Structures are given as structure tokens and as C-alpha cells.
């Protein structure tokens, strides 16, 4: 009913499962590293926008304009 044991097939199966698992983990790690790098690359731009730069503000207002406040 159970058939003859084939431990060679079982070893092959375990080796292939381990290879697939390693491939999956590597792919996930690469995806995670890429997404973290992308986030870090975007971060300085958002900080630059958030901080007040008087020279930049002056150039936007124009040299002749004055604020009323």
C-alpha cells in the first residue's frame, strides 16, 4: 500500500525545499533593502522642504517685495 521507501527522492525534495526557501528569503531581503534605500533617498528632500531657508524665501518673494507683517 505504502510502496517502497525512496530516501533519495526525500533528500532531493528537502534540498530543493531548502533552495526555494533560501531564494525566497534572499528575494525578500533584497526587496526590503531596496525599499529602505528608496525611503532614505526621499527623506532629505522632505526635510529640506520642512526647514525654513531665508535665502530661498527671499528669492521666492523677490528682492523688491516686503512682507507686511
Amino acid at each position: 500500500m505504502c510502496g517502497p521507501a525512496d530516501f533519495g527522492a526525500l533528500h532531493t525534495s528537502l534540498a530543493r525545499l531548502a533552495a526555494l526557501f533560501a531564494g525566497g528569503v534572499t528575494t525578500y531581503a533584497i526587496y526590503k533593502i531596496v525599499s529602505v534605500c528608496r525611503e532614505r533617498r526621499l527623506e532629505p528632500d522632505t526635510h529640506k522642504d520642512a526647514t525654513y531657508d531665508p535665502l530661498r524665501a527671499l528669492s521666492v518673494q523677490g528682492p523688491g517685495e516686503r512682507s507686511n507683517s
Partner: protein
Amino acid sequence: MKLSAASPKEIALGVAVGAVGAAIFLFAFPAGSISTLVHNVFRLPGPGAGIALVFGPFLVFVVLVSSLLTRANGQALITASAFAISCTLLVCAFRARTDPKGVFGSVLFLAAVALLGLAVEVVLVVGKAFSRLAHCLLAGGLANAVLLVFYWLAIFPRTASGVKGKDIPLLMGICLVCGLWAAYLAWLVSRPLCRALALKLKE
């Protein structure tokens, strides 16, 4: 959880997940490996231990991941059918050695896998009242049990032998636990996958 009709993109995703799942299954489990694992290593009685412990949970995982990614009606059935057809085509194309007891690539095999997809589909539609994880677990356990019962009734009497009454509780218990475990894994995996694929969840 809301379910809506599958769009062409979602159907394509279901077919792709089913086909990749079939290829991985045939690659990872050559003929004789499952049988040796369950009967010679774990010393489980047969027939049906391989279905309960390996094949059913693998299929539940593939089908549920696809369903949870898209949340579309019919996704489980599409993925299960794609899995069965891809398995059949790969077995024919590459003359892959499979366990004759599992009748891979036959009409009965197609029916068994489609039945599992249908069971998942029914639970996902009917069990909307439960939380997502709860009805995911319910779908996994029930679908694995349906697959095992179908193999016991329709396939194993032709290819192996009938199951003994005293072995049924043990095999059914293993079947339910492994189905639940596969469903939980599918639930865990589907969340980062959803983000990675940037699929809009319709919920």
C-alpha cells in the same frame, strides 16, 4: 471582507499564482518523496497521509494567498483550476515522475483540486460575518478536509486501497491542523505581498 467579481488583471494574477504553485510543487516534491516522508519517517498510516500533511496544505496555501491578494469572487476557483491544469501540462510536457496514487494530471485530479478551490470559495463568501483571519482559517481547514475525503472516496479505492476506520480520526485530525496552519501562513504572507504588489484592497 468584501468580495467582488474578478477583473482581467486579477484573473491573470490567479492563473500566474496557480501555475507557479504547480511548478514549485512538482519541482519540490519528486515522486516517492511525500510517501517516504509520511509513511517511513513519520510512520503515519495510509492512504491519505500525504494529502493531509503535504499536498492539501500546499494547495490551501497557494489558493488562499491568491484569494487574499485580490479579494475577488471566484479567485480561489481560478487559482485551483490553474494549478490543476498547469500540473497536468507540466507532467505531460516534461514527463515528470509523480506518485501514481495521487493520479496527477488525470480528470479525477482536476476534479479534486477544483473541489478544494470551490470549498475555499464557498467559505470565503459564506463566512463574511467572521473576521478575515477566522474565515481564512475556516476555509483552510475545511478545504483540506474536503480534498482528503474526496481522495478517500473517489481516488484511493482505485489507486491504493480503502482507508481503515481506525485511521480516519488520526488522519482527519492531521488534515485539519495542517489546513489551519497553511491558512495561517497564507494570511501572514499575503499582508506584505499585498504591499509589495501594491494591490488596492477592496475593503
